């Protein structure tokens, strides 16, 4: 079981199994999730962490945090790690392309600028 925790110094993941729990720190480096039966956490370091767990188990807690946006039914993105975007696609700072679903473009743009310019 993978549990997402939010600490004073950012995000970290806690991975739990029968033998104990393992804390994966510096999740601030994470920038996107992909759901296709599994979740992939793509980390800034270039690592990809694969978890067999539905996206909705993380979605609510992530979307309640400022900075995350669901741009597609299969993707969440951490906005400060967005390099630039078009109407249909986001390019991350680390070179990955993430689709923007039809109808999400306007909301993504508003959220992106709101976060970058730190609107209250």
């Amino acid at each position: 079981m993978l549990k997402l925790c939010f600490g004073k110094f950012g995000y970290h993941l806690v991975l739990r199994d029968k033998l104990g729990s393992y804390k994966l720190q510096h999740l601030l480096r994470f920038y996107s999730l992909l759901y296709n039966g599994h979740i992939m956490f793509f980390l800034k370091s270039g690592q990809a962490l694969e978890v067999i767990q539905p996206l909705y188990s993380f979605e609510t807690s992530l979307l309640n945090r400022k900075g995350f946006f669901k741009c597609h039914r299969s993707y969440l993105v951490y906005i400060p790690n967005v390099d630039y975007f078009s109407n249909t696609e986001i390019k991350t700072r680390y070179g990955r392309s993430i689709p923007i679903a039809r109808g999400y473009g306007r909301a993504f743009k508003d959220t992106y600028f709101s976060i970058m310019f730190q609107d209250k």
Partner: protein
Amino acid sequence: MREEEDRVLQFILGMLNNSSLLVFGVFVSSAILSIPFVDFTSILSNGLENAIHAVSRLAVNKERRISLNLRMYEDKLLLSIKNPYQDEIDMLEGIPQAKEKGHGLGSQSIKYVTEKLKGNCQFIAKDGQFALRVVL
């Protein structure tokens, strides 16, 4: 580095001298250095021209204030130009549309140059306040 910052400041002050109706807050960042001067000043001049045009059309009793803000968010340069406006603004796909002859290319030019530099821009017209926001 200093020379480039001076060029940008001189450019802004040059625009100020031509208008004589503005109050500015200016923060120039070294991040400008990584952006071609001609492209950056194209965005800046078009944004300021639009703002000057809008405030010059305000009624006499309205405050004619344009605020320019340049700052960094990590390695991104954030530029915002805000001004009050009076006339209604038509937006098409997020871009303001000119109603007068000889106007209307500025906003499109800002969008074109911003996208060329792999950045994004946003135009907001709400409650009598116009804002151009650019991330580069």
